[in-house]
């Protein structure tokens, strides 16, 4: 398992291998080929950040550009999924969900239930999320709490190249609609990734660090911050257990509860806005189902209740920082 590739390459590889394995896997999105109808290279871009580059050369028309019409093509992906295809539709930035949410939450997510079990909708919607690129208020949000709220969707937040590949392959093979969210700051992160295809199951948390003093539940990019802080504090003898749920829906509540039962202390680190968030969700889990074990108030470290600011000085203050995480841990450790 010595090969190292980036998070971005891991996602490309997952798409490539699944497209090779299964004819019904198709990929669509704005500029995922990236040159349709032009006078230069047909696949000039391969996605706005080059993530799908190379797939057109290998898979031809099974990867396709779309006009800018997110309701149209996300809906098309959903419709095709009900016909037995396995579309992977790229929404580019998750912030754009506002122009196509209906197809996701009223259509894809509810078909099976409304139709009394008669539909399967194996669609994957990939999008980038998160702050850190000075991309401002409409290109930096972490909207996974909203998708987690919606029954019928599965929501995936890979935090490493290994998970990115395995979770994406799982998402494609999964028979339910999946929202697959990639943190844009992680694209260049390197890690060990097996060459052969493999799946990482949904609803199984990754215990990134073991420890008896404090449980830290962190999501996506925040797993890296939490792990860094845990390693630092370990040297002082504060042993943190860092849990990466990997999927917020389904949630591996058992692993989290088990850890809290052991530590009695919980910090949740969530890049999203605080109200009705994953931070709230995990705090609720603790106080409703592990109350007797809690030895201290739960601490949440989140973005503030503000849009994402542009200026770096403000964006840095917006994103939960290792310093804030450390302070939260120390306040209850």
């Amino acid at each position, binding site marked *: 398992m010595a090969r190292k590739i980036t998070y971005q390459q891991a996602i490309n590889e997952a798409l490539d291998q699944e497209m090779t394995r299964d004819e019904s896997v*198709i990929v669509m999105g704005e500029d995922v080929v990236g040159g349709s109808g032009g006078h230069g290279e047909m696949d000039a871009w391969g996605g706005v950040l080059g993530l799908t580059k190379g797939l057109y050369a290998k898979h031809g*028309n*099974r990867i*396709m550009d*779309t*006009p800018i*019409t997110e*309701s*149209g*093509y*996300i*809906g*098309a*992906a*959903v*419709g*095709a*999924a*009900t*016909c*037995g*295809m396995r*579309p992977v539709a790229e929404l580019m930035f998750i912030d754009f969900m506002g122009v196509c949410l*209906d*197809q996701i939450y*009223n*259509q894809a997510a509810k*078909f*099976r*239930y*409304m*139709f*009394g*079990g*008669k*539909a*399967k909708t194996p669609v994957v919607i990939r999008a980038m999320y998160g702050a850190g690129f000075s991309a401002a208020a409409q290109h930096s949000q972490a909207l996974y709490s909203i998708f987690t709220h919606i*029954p*019928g969707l*599965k929501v995936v937040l890979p935090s490493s190249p290994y998970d990115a590949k395995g979770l994406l392959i799982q998402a494609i093979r999964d*028979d*339910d609609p999946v929202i697959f969210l990639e943190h844009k700051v992680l694209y260049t992160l390197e890690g060990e990734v097996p060459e052969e295809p493999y799946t990482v199951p949904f609803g199984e948390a990754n215990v990134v660090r073991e420890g008896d003093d404090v449980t830290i539940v962190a999501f996506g990019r925040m797993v890296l911050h939490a792990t860094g802080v845990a390693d630092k504090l370990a040297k002082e003898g504060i042993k943190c257990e860092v849990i990466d749920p990997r999927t917020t829906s389904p949630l591996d509540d058992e692993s989290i509860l088990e850890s809290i039962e052991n530590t009695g202390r919980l910090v949740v680190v969530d890049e999203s806005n605080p109200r009705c968030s994953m931070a709230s969700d995990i705090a609720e889990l603790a106080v409703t189902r592990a109350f007797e074990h809690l030895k201290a108030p739960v601490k949440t470290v989140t973005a503030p209740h503000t849009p994402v600011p542009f200026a770096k000085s403000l964006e840095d203050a917006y994103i939960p920082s290792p310093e804030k995480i450390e302070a939260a841990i120390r306040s209850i450790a």
Partner: protein
Amino acid sequence: MSELSKEKLLEAYRMMRTIRDFEERVHDEFAKGGIPGFVHLYAGEEASATGICMHLTDQDRIVSTHRGHGHCIAKGVDVIGMMAEIYGKQTGTCHGKGGSMHIADLDKGMLGANGIVGGGPPLICGVGLTHKMRGTDGVGIAFFGDGASNQGTTLESMNLATVWNLPCIFVVENNGYAEATSSEWAVSCDNYADRAAGFGMPGTTVDGHDFFAVYETAGEAIARARAGGGPSLVEVKLNRYFGHFEGDAQTYRRADEVKQLREEKDCLKIFRKRVVDANLLEHSDLDKIDEEVAALIDEAVQQAEAASPPAVEELLTHVYVNY
């Protein structure tokens, strides 16, 4: 007209009659208080669903609207199951979990009524795409109303269908109203064909009270799509006999509008006259169908009333594939 066999003509009449009786009966039963929820009836519009769906097989798929019963019946969804669904019973097409606005039967190529105006057209692009990628000659048909024709989701789907050259037909059922609002007011073009041109596809308007006109126009569009010629828009001009939903007093219509329509613009009467006058069918052929359909609808209501509601455990099933 002449290209249709006697068998086909009988089938068409039966389909239209079934829709009409189904809807009239739902109207009555709703008034009696037996049916819950919001119910939108298709009576008066039968020639559209029938004239179009007669061209389709189970591999062809349609998407429908809140006013979906007619499309379901025309696409072959079981009438007994539909009635039970509308009553919210375990024996319903969707086990009582969807109701009138969400009847679907994917095996029959019916991808669902839809509670969201403009919800269907994007989905049909996916149906068309699947057929195209698999190399079948299947098509997808999006039924939607004049109101839905202004929804962005509908408009952008038409662009997408042309750009991807999909075998999709966009059928605007223009019944003159979206709820209480007139389509003459809410639709900015005089003629839907103008809108089709803006999306690079042929557009045709057809009299939706005339089964044969619908059948022919749809046939051309569908044949073109099957042959790889891409999408079309078909505007079907027709009328609904009942209110927007059950309970609507319809004071936005002229007082005698519906009465007049029932007299002058009844697709069943028009059909009967045409086929009998042309000596293609006898009144007795059609009367027999009328009786059979009446019995079927009685049976459907009886079964629906007698059936059990879904058990409480069903609340937690069908959320995901594993539960």
